[in-house]
């Protein structure tokens, strides 16, 4: 983990609400794993507005580039969207615990919603390199928000898309899809990101079916480096309730440990 000042190679709007950022990462010598994130300083000058960095998980990891996918919504992400190729940007990371793929894993299930799709895209890329069969259910408000679908399709055996627009994204429907999937295929591990509702659903199903599963949480982070305790969440580990820092002990947690109140 370091504060890297890297060069923006590309920063483009890819759908109504989403942007795609590519930076030159040739100076980063550390290993970067899916599920980890960088804390990005969205403002370059001394306005201190917005004051704090914003955490974004890694979307794609290549030899000399790093990619992020983000929703330009609030002050920070809107500011981020103003970066032009050639400008320097400050990235603090890589931070946090990554997703892990169990040994001898053959088939996995990805369940993502919204920008969570970006986070799982990185995992899909890695799993594909390990020759794992990937089944993905991607959920979004509408088709325009189903970003990264093309990227993720490249790696997956099968991708299912559900949206509010098509009235296919309700929890009941997704539950049936997951059940069908795990009935047809022997799923070794499941991963989710981007929705509390879907995480709770997956938690129940994987518990009932004895499937290893992990979730990447998106808690509000002030420092992103384990010092401020703003990003805490409650987990139950070996029967003991603990308040942990999601920036350091997470953002990826075993799904069964997470307490969704």
């Amino acid at each position, binding site marked *: *983990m370091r504060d890297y000042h890297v060069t923006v190679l590309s920063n483009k709007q890819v759908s109504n609400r989403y942007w795609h950022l590519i930076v030159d990462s040739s100076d980063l010598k550390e290993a970067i794993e899916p599920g980890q994130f960088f804390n990005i300083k969205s403002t370059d000058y*001394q306005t201190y507005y917005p004051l704090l960095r914003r955490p974004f998980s890694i979307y794609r990891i290549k030899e000399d580039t790093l990619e992020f996918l983000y929703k330009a919504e609030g002050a920070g992400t809107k500011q981020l969207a103003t970066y032009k190729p050639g400008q320097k940007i400050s990235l*603090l990371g890589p931070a946090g615990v990554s997703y892990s793929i169990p040994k001898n894993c053959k088939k996995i299930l990805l369940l993502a919603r919204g920008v969570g799709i970006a986070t799982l895209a990185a995992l899909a890329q890695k799993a594909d390199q390990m020759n794992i069969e990937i089944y993905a259910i991607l959920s979004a408000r509408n088709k325009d928000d189903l970003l990264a679908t093309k990227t993720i399709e490249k790696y997956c055996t099968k991708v299912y898309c559900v949206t509010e627009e098509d009235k296919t994204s309700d929890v009941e429907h997704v539950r049936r899809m997951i059940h069908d999937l795990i009935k047809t295929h022997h799923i070794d591990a499941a991963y989710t990101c981007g929705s509390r509702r879907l995480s709770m659903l997956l938690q129940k199903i994987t518990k009932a079916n004895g499937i290893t599963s992990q979730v990447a949480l998106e808690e509000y982070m002030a420092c992103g480096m384990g*010092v401020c305790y703003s990003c*805490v969440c409650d987990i139950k580990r070996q029967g003991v309730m603990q308040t942990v820092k999601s920036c350091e002990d997470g953002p990826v947690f075993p799904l069964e440990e997470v307490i969704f109140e």
Partner: protein
Amino acid sequence: MEVDIGGMKITNPVMPASGAFGEGMDRVIDFNLLGALIPKSITKYPQRGNRTPRACETKGGMINSIGIQSKGIDYYLKETIPYYEQYSIPLISSISAESIDEFVEMSSIIASVTSVAALELNISCPNLKNNGQAFGMSDDITYQLVNRVRKVTDKPILVKLTPNVTDIQSIALAAERAGADSLVVANTPLAMAIDIHTRRPKIGNIMGGLSGPAIKPIIVRQIYQVHEVSQLPIIGCGGIMTADDAIEMMLAGASAVQVGTANFVSPTAMIDIIAGIQTYMEEHQLHRIDELIGGVIVMNQREEDYI
């Protein structure tokens, strides 16, 4: 750049603010370059801390209400202090307690650890036994608290004042009379923000402390006021982002500074500030840092020539 803080010599005047610094930062900066090390305030018993959300942004600042999420004094003695022993610079322990007795008890235990160079008493947090008022809001209680701690240790005592008072000078003098060695000016102004769409406070605990550039002018004023009446070395804290901010506080009367929120924005901020102070001193041909402390010129205030 050496400064003397109530008997404790530090090689430069820049140190972290308690709660906005921690072990995780060793991956990003070399702790040995700092003036001193101050981990997050410690409580006697393990505490969960406040409900989330615990932080939010405001214009030019942020509000936090972490509460003291703490693993308790036993963990602190067994793990935290030994961790910091690997560094060669002074370790200052920030203590938070719920009663004067508890402050005394904890101070006595922690001060007896050889590697602890000084204590910082965080008297700015609400005192549950006194209707939520902070200890540091009353001259009397400040005096009693510091006086009792003074009796159990000879190590330097830093008292971290709260800015939420009518008359910071009288609180400063109470701490000084009671035997404090240095005053940290100051903790965070109490603040609140509301999300107008959900109608909920942006902080789980409703209110929290405001930090960051927004508060600097209030803190500079309080440093100046405290420096006017007290002989003690002052550590300025609140809103320092750059070397210029640190120098401003030193001119107002601070002997050293603490940096909090800036670490979140730029984890190398403290290192950059040390370098920036050095550059300023060279440019202004100052040989000793003392030439800076309290160096504001308030005589014959007049309009600057505008040629």
